[in-house]
């Protein structure tokens, strides 16, 4: 004879199973495509949705076992050297920012998060694929509610010394199968690359790979190449989830939490 507790447990298991199966079915749903077969990174006509819920707390080299507290603070400062292959000055600066409780974080005075930190900021991101003009626009709901352009027309990446440096860099992109690969240069140094305080210089080149593996999941991988700051190129990766609805309006205001 089943006790009340047993019945509760069975019901709970059934709910968990249903939710899990539902999520699995959604996650395995194929990504939508344009008529020419290109993956749609954005919503279908008549649909509402955007990408959010970055699956990482802070930027760290893939494969490293480092624990961050919410906000990007290391649980153990002794792990700092594991976060990325720092040059000595960069490690010292990263530790300083960590131990200084991020008081000099440019985002505290509403400066832009820059890239790739923008991809970790809650608030949402959309991809507007302009196939006529061969451009991709990324619209960000978080940070400074800004946008960036990825040129898909086959042009070469800009020479960093010849362009006005920006927070999000200047990007060119191409499709490698179903993966959008964007290479960006021309960054200024007025932002931190992560909430944890990762530094960079004007020599920074980012190579980002966006892959919509299902209707609900976007895989994001970034390769950081800045030989003035890091001893070798390194990668980090996380996912974003599809959220039904519209991005909410929000603006950065200094002096308010």
């Amino acid at each position, binding site marked *: 004879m089943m006790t009340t507790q047993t019945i509760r447990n069975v019901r709970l298991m059934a709910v968990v199973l249903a939710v899990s199966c539902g999520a699995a079915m959604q996650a395995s749903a194929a990504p939508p495509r344009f008529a020419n077969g290109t993956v749609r990174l954005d919503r279908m006509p008549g649909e509402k949705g955007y990408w959010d819920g970055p699956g990482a707390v802070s930027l760290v080299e893939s494969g490293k076992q480092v624990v961050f507290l919410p906000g990007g603070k290391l649980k153990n400062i002794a792990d700092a050297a594991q976060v990325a292959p720092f040059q*000595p*000055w960069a*490690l*010292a*600066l990263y530790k*300083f*920012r960590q131990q*200084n409780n991020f*008081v*000099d*974080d*440019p985002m*505290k*005075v509403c*400066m832009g998060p820059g890239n790739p930190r923008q991809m970790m900021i809650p608030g949402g991101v959309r991809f507007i694929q302009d196939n006529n003009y061969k451009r991709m626009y990324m619209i960000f709901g978080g940070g400074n509610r800004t946008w960036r352009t990825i040129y898909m027309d086959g042009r070469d990446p800009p020479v960093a010394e010849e362009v006005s440096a920006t927070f999000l860099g200047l990007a060119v992109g191409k499709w490698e199968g179903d993966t959008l690969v964007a290479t960006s240069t021309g960054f200024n*140094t*007025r932002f931190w690359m992560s909430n944890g305080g990762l*530094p*960079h*210089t*004007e*020599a920074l080149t980012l190579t980002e790979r966006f892959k919509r593996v299902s209707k609900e999941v976007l895989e994001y991988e970034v390769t950081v190449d800045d*030989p*003035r*700051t890091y001893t070798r190129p390194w990668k980090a990766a996380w996912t974003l989830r599809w959220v039904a609805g519209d991005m909410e309006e929000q603006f950065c205001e200094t002096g308010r939490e």
Partner: protein
Amino acid sequence: MRNTLFAGLLLFACATANAQEGFPLDGTWRGETTASDGSHRTIVLILQWDGKVIGGTMNPGPNGTDFTTGKLNPDGWKFTFDLKTKKNEAVRFDGALGDLGKYNRFLSGKWTENGRSFDIRFVRE
């Protein structure tokens, strides 16, 4: 008048709230000193990290002197460089970074030129 003063103070606060940038020594630094005879002197340094060496220019202009001998020890953020001016005078600076997290951080230390030394403080512009 009060509004103007308030706006000015706000602008100043915003300007000084600028955050830390990339390599901590990159940028233009200005130092002022007054000699024992009362003469005033301004020294300008432009510093640039290229990933291997810290180079720069002392007093950019017709008599500017380039150097590539900068050394930074992140343990304590101590900085030093040596150069020879166009008059073949040896110059050495031994200093340390202060206010590391600020845009207008400073370098303070001992400047030795032509055998004479004095303390000086450079502020990043």
